[in-house]
């Protein structure tokens, strides 16, 4: 077996291992994003309850203070609200969620929770807004739990699977 074949084999193994690690990292990222979304919504709840801060200011604050994978969503909505106020918060939220869902590694059910929350965003009085935030937080917590379990069981699987499949391909090719 020549040196070139060794190098080729190594490439195949590392590529497959990389894919596996990537899949595993996505699972972790989803957990982080779901947790970040809850934290953000909790801050929003406080802002609405105690200061009645308008959404653009509240979202900007949340987007700036958190460093979770969810932070860009809040920053994006804040920016859009400032530049296109006539569109209305629900539509801007939906657009931003759809655009950033993949970045946050969110699954369709997670996205559904966010979209449903967005429909009433800013459109009612304080008590009602808080109720919607609480409902969204509860549902996100359920999603986070599921994501965490999935990450615990699947992350290692994806990592080993990547390496093993890479190795299998190399064996078959030789």
């Amino acid at each position: 077996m020549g040196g070139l074949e060794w190098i080729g084999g190594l490439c195949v193994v590392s590529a497959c291992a990389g894919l596996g690690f990537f899949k595993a990292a996505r699972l972790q990222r989803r957990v982080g994003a779901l947790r970040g979304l809850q934290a953000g919504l909790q801050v929003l709840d406080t802002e609405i309850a105690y200061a009645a801060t308008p959404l653009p200011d509240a979202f900007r604050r949340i987007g700036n203070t958190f460093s979770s994978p969810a932070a860009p969503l809040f920053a994006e909505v804040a920016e859009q609200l400032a530049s296109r106020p006539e569109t209305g918060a629900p539509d801007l939220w939906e657009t931003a969620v759809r655009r950033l869902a993949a970045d946050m590694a969110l699954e369709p059910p997670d996205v559904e929770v966010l979209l449903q929350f967005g429909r009433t965003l800013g459109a009612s009085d304080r008590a009602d807004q808080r109720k919607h935030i609480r409902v969204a937080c509860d549902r996100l917590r359920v999603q986070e739990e599921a994501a965490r379990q999935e990450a615990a069981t699947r992350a290692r699987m994806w990592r080993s699977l990547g390496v093993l499949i890479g190795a299998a391909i190399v064996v078959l090719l030789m």
Partner: protein
Amino acid sequence: MKRPTAEPGTKQREAGCGGVPEAVRRLLPPKIRKALESCSPEVLEALEEIRIRRDLPVHLWTGRGEGFLMGEGRLSPFPAEGMVAGAEDVMHVVQGLSQSSLYALEEELRRGYVTLPGGHRAGIVGRAVVAEGRVQTQVDITGVNLRVARPVTGISRDLADWLVEPPGKIGSVLIISPPQCGKTTLLRDLAYQVSSGRWHPLVAPRKVAVVDERSELAGTWKGRRHFDLGPRTDVLDGCPKAEGMMILLRSMSPEILVTDEIGGEEDVAALREVLRAGVIVFASVHGGDLQDIRRRPSLRPLVEEGAFFRYVVLSRQRGPMTVEGIFDASGRRLRAQPGRQPVASGG
């Protein structure tokens, strides 16, 4: 009296926006904004109110008359020809007013108006939500009235000869006027002129304190005044009038206190207190003439005691800020002085 022209020395930030201030313009739904922008400059310059009512034609109220806005930017006297505003147009304005955060407007909806940057105001009506006998907020908004505030005009200098008695004696002034006749503009101008010492050659500049309950007089927005009320003016923003007058009296040692739209018993009691302290008051009140004020139980004693040095009655007879008459403390109409512009036709 001819309509006052702008003073060269006063702030005129509104100019150059085609008469519709940006704070108001950006709230308008695109189709209404477009129609409004194709209106003639005369209409836009005199524009005072844009009334958007659900399922009804858009109604403009200007210094030169009123009308319903047509698609191509003309005004029609016939409602049927006007451009009809839909529920989504009203919602558009409300979204803009609240920055898409209706919950942040609860207090404003309860009071029925929102103050915009620049002292402009949006009145809002919908369905009131009442709990324990008090209005909590409003829902299902059906009508919005965007009121354009006009800056200092210099009109009070035209009135100075009637409000100042030689040699330079000034006293409390009550401006009596129905809504939309320019009483806030006149008060704002009085505050500016007295504070800057430009009012009358014999009147020295005074320290002025303003209770601006509705953020209309100074147009304060996030701590910045939009209207110049003069270099010796303090503004207490957003404070209920009665309480505000007492705070200012204690804290800012004003020589002149300015407040808009007095009416309630508490306001009058506070006003008395201020007058007793030797402070001059410039105030305004809703009413058609001096008789109306005499008929109101809360204000009547003030008139009878001669608490005010002058009464200025405004109307819209010949455009906003038509001075119907000026009366002295005993309610006698002052005559036009020789060589001067007549104040009122009956004068």
